[in-house]
């Protein structure tokens, strides 16, 4: 799974440069991402290239949110496509993490 990590000001931006986050990809995702978010105070997940997420993928993202919360950090999500956004809202993920249409909008709200 391709992950792109950048920094903008004091925000760690993690772009999931993969089309799918489903059951087969979850272990790889967690192994790659959890170390990147640990102890970070501001994290932004950019899901611009993510075409499909399933329930396991949602669980993996949740595990990252829990990690950041446990470290007293703040995490946001941006650039979800319509189907991913719909799924996040279905399981009420939008109640625990702010989801923005654009990266800049998310960065402006940290």
């Amino acid at each position, binding site marked *: 799974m391709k992950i792109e990590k950048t920094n903008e000001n004091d925000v760690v931006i993690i772009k999931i440069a993969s089309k*799918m986050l*489903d*059951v*087969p990809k979850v272990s790889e995702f967690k192994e790659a991402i959890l170390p990147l978010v640990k102890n970070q105070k501001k994290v932004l997940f950019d899901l611009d290239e993510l075409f*499909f997420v*399933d*329930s*396991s993928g*949602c*669980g993996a993202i*949740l*595990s990252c*949110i*829990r990690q950041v*919360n446990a470290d007293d950090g703040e995490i946001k999500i941006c650039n979800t496509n319509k*189907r991913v956004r*719909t*799924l996040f809202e*279905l*399981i*009420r*993920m939008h*109640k*625990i993490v702010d989801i923005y249409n654009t990266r800049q909008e998310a960065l402006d709200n940290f």
Partner: protein
Amino acid sequence: MVQHLDLRDVKGNIMKISSNIENLHQVRDYIRQFSASLAPPLPDEKLDMLELAANEVAANIIRHGYGDDKPGEFKIIIIQEATGISIQFLDQGDPFNRENAILFNPEADEIIDKTGGFGLFIIEEIMDKVTYDQDDLGNNRTQLFLKI
């Protein structure tokens, strides 16, 4: 009404897939190919729902019905009906007991505390009808129906 079909009478829209989790994307591809074969194809929103629900059912069959120690295969049958799309999954893994399943409840459960269990909730939330039973040949049968 969802039809209950004897596989021997069904032609065309049947996919057989081995219970390897790496094959999960084939289920989604199959749903999309089916939609593309329709005139007109399914609306994007409906296709997305079918694809996701089918993915979740297939993942459950692979992981919980079969598991790593009991590989097998299962069949997927897609049928375009008068009022919608029906998808049947037939497997010979461990049967699924819906009554014992604990569904995610977004009104009562704190999502931040959940480590899983969304799949069943998703399936039953986005499909118009979901049934779990066994067919006359002893296969576990999961049926999804979505109005179009």
